[in-house]
């Protein structure tokens, strides 16, 4: 066996070659290392023998003959499937949307129509006052916070409708 030092770009030693042999045959060894390994194999009979044996083994593992599936294999499997249960679950499954799109995901006070409409009225009022009295725009921005509950509920509704429409298209 050749015994060479492990330096970057230097020829490989036999242990280094054997270490990288599997990756080399898998085709996953880095390019420069593959070249060094190839050069080592060209010169080293022992490593080449090891390489040939491993390659042969890979070839055989890849082409192991298939064993035929026994007759009537499918019957007990197909007989055991709860088709009816799947069919019964289908409408429920179709109505299923991600948790964040379910109404209950938002706190009840945000969903409350009083809060939402009050927020809208407050926001519109603040923006109108800011415009009429020439107040700084930051006042209008603060007032727009009142729109948040209504926007959240609206976005959730749109998202839910989109998911359900997609599910209907798939089915």
């Amino acid at each position: 066996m050749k015994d060479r030092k492990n330096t970057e770009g230097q020829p490989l030693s036999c242990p280094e070659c054997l270490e990288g042999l599997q990756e080399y045959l898998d085709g996953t060894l880095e390019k420069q290392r593959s070249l060094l390994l190839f050069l080592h194999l060209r010169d080293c009979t022992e490593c080449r023998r090891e390489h040939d044996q491993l390659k042969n083994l890979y070839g055989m593992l890849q082409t192991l003959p298939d064993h035929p599936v026994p007759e009537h294999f499918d019957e007990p499997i197909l007989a055991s499937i709860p088709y009816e249960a799947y069919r019964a679950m289908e409408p429920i499954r179709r109505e299923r949307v991600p948790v964040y799109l379910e109404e209950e995901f938002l706190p009840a006070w945000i969903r409350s129509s009083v809060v939402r409409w009050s927020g809208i009225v407050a926001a519109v009022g603040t923006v109108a006052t800011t415009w009429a009295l020439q107040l700084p725009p930051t006042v209008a921005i603060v007032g727009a916070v009142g729109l948040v509950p209504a926007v959240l509920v609206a976005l959730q509704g749109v998202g839910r409708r989109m998911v359900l429409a997609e599910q209907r298209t798939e089915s």
Partner: protein
Amino acid sequence: MFDRHQDLKTIKRCKRGEEAAFAEILTRYRGAIYNLCYRMTRNGEDARDLAQEVFIKVFSLLDRFDESYAFSSWLFRIATNHCIDHLRRNRLKFLSLDGAVGKDGEEYELQFPGKEPEPDTVLQRKEAMEKVEEVIADLPPHYRAIILLRHDQQLSYDEIAETLQMPLGTVKARIHRARNLLQQMLKNRSYDL
């Protein structure tokens, strides 16, 4: 190797209770799963029972299948675990001459008198295949499974990592060790390749 998107479409049909969709999945995978079970157990009857149990389990749990993963990975994971559980339950059957599995799942060496190499035997390819199959069957179950997934089912390292739910580095290291052990066992038995 297996068409992930095609599988997903068929699984959606299965979830709607379409009988033909289940039959399609079965046609697509029964050979692979039966052969995996066969090579894990080296016994036709056990392989048939195990493979059927795998499909029955999978088909009853489809609602739990996470569609962000490949169906084939989920199926092979269930099949591999089912075979390993079976082998654990029948531990005596898989004590090998070259290695066995300790409590920690790692193989240890068993000492037996050396087997004399048969003189002047030139193995034909078919015979060599049989020897390889025999040695695979004597690998510790975790190594056997990973060798079969890599070489027989030809899954990529990434697919195996997803199937066995292991980091990629662990998969590579385990395949490396499994191949070394396989080679060593072939040499111990004087099976020339």
